[in-house]
């Protein structure tokens, strides 16, 4: 996985045309909806990974990176050198690392309890022993 990510990393980003076009989209609402998450339970029934050698580490992203390709390069290097899969736990709407092939889960919740329960559920699902906060 890390090699395919390394091969895909490039500083090219698509031009964002939302500001130009959004006013003419008749579905656009005056108020953005929220990312919501009721208090959820941990996932305790996983049967493990398909490949027993798989190890995942979590990267808890609190803000979207300004230069996603730089962070992607760092994380892909960690992944390649340590033979681990990197799972992005993203608070922003896009981690901006998705285009390179990083698996991204959304972390949200209106309260601290909801957000922590969400993180705990994702950590149990991915069997994360290590979560780095960026």
């Amino acid at each position, binding site marked *: 996985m890390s090699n395919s990510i390394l091969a895909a990393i490039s500083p090219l980003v698509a031009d964002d*045309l939302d500001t130009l076009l959004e006013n*003419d989209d008749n579905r656009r609402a005056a108020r953005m909806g*929220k990312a919501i998450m009721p208090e959820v339970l941990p996932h305790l*029934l996983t049967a493990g990974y398909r490949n027993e050698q798989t190890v995942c580490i979590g990267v808890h992203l609190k803000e979207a990176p300004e230069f996603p390709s730089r962070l992607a390069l760092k994380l892909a290097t960690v992944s390649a050198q340590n033979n681990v899969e990197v799972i992005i736990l993203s608070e922003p*709407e896009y981690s901006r690392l998705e285009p390179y092939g990083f698996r*991204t889960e959304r972390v949200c919740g209106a309260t601290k309890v909801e957000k922590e329960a969400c993180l705990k559920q*994702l950590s149990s699902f991915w069997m994360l022993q290590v979560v780095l906060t960026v």
Partner: protein
Amino acid sequence: MLLIVSTSDEKSDFEVLAVVADQLQAIGLEPRIAMCGAVLELSRNAQFDLAPFMADELAGPEDTVLLIGSNKITDAASIRLRAPLRHAGRVIAIGSFETIQSRISVRAALSYLTKSRPEVLSVPDDQGALPVFGVDCGKGMRRGSRKAVIIHDPEPGNPEDKALIDALFWSETLEPVILCHSAVKSEFTKNYGPALRCYHHYEIMPRHVTSLADMVIMRGEKANGYRNMALIANCLESGVPVMANRLKHSPNWIMRLPNSADAALRMIDRDLLGNEEMIREELAAVKRPELDAGLLALLGQTRKVKKDTKRAGIIYMPTNGVGLGHAQRCSLVAAQMREQKPVFAAFPSCMRMLQGYGFDVMPLVSRSPHHGQEHDNDMINRARLDALSADGGTLVFDGGYVFDSILRVISDRRMNGIWIRRGMWQAGQDNSIALDREKIFSKVIVPNEAFDELNESYSEGAHIHNIGPIVQQTNITPAKHTHLRNCLAAKYGEFDKLVVTMLGGGVAADRSIQMSVLANMLEERRGVLHLVVTWPTALVPPTLAACSNTHVVRTHHASVLASIADLYISAVGYNSFHEAMYNRLPTIFMAQMNSFMDDQHKRASAAVKRGLADMVDPEDYSHLLGQISLHLDSGYGSDIRMALAEINLPQPGNADAARLILGGK
């Protein structure tokens, strides 16, 4: 917290705990099942049963522990249970205790494990040492006016059972719903198709069976096992009459049913239909087992179902398929009912788009290539949907495959399930599971294709509602058109012709070669601006960066951009196709074909043969070059716009879909 703890770590004992929890939830408790580190090879169905109740927490001083199977406590179990029980505020030990000595013995054993003084509730041994109690399940959503008759445990080869099912299947007033063993379910679905709703015991909770039932006919000789006992108890509480003709040791409130199908129907017609209130009164007067009252008194609850405190609103759950079509379509319908404040449960790649349309969105988890069980992510989604939904709410699903999470949450939360199901399934696709799960939905809304020959029927019944195409119609005035193009010119330089390419998400087929070919074909044309639209989570193909008049853009409002193009080059998903038709866009279609997708080639062909669009095969580059030339050099695009302006297209179905979801007919 009410923590259910089992003294057993046997798989079969754990499976039944979810049913106990579901029954307890019905009376207003919030039960959790302590996993106590158990690693079990549970069936898929049992895993989905347990998903909304699992807990890894230990009981605290405020918590009550319901210790199931207390009479079977072993030394090994004592060690395993020490941690969850140690700080529990209250422990209720449930089991079969035939003698005073056995009660004293278990209380003594538990005193070592917990600081609290354990209370003991003895249940009969033939209940498997489990607390059986009924709850009033209310009436679930009905599809039509026919009364639902649950046929419990029919045998596929039994002529009497077959005659009864046949008689009900063709009845105008009654509808059979089969509840059987998983091993024989396919025998019924094979013979009757999706028109016969058929469940096996482990895909539906007793509480939901009861809420679906107007009456229950038990065909087996036995109805043991906790699920069956809970079903019978629920029927008594819910005023649902139960009939049987082979059942041994049945309580006297279960009615005898004649053997012959004709006589059975006559009896139902004479005694039951139209007498629901009287039946409810009679069943309410039946003396309940003392145990029921004992358990409920211990828990401080009554049997009356407590109202869910959460808002019973409308939840949309679009599948994230190859593209974002399901989410787009749902948002068009949801936009028709903003005052109802619908919310979405959607995969992360769709969230920003839906939030931009003003909807609150709960993220779901996509399938993982790493996990050993392919449904692991769906169990997370089941738990999340369960936490988001409330009894009696509406869940609108848009997708081709009905996930277990959808089936379970509609069933267990007794929601009104509605399926928006577009057609154009490919010939040879195996849709048997999808069609089997149609049973869970009160309505199936089929947004038609614009052209009649593309519309096919996959199932029939009063619950199927065909409506016009669900499509976004843009309203770009000439002044707006000029303004937007001027803005693009200011950003990218002057141009005469605008080409917009949007070839899909790349899940079904990698289109980077086609994008590169298009960019190179257009590079030599002066005065052309070529915008390649990608989704924000998609990779920008590096080869496109070298072309001077091609730019890769991202937007959540691609239909607006397509509306101001001189040429639109597009995949042929439902939404893209209908936007091209209804917004009169001169389009070259390039179909994405894969076995799990809709038949895009067939859809595009319908427009091509009417002179409303062009289509090229993805590898036919010379044809592509010719078509581009035709559009950009000969004014052919204007001809297509005129042809589209003249054709009569069906009225869009956006508002009709919303009306049906809100209860309209």
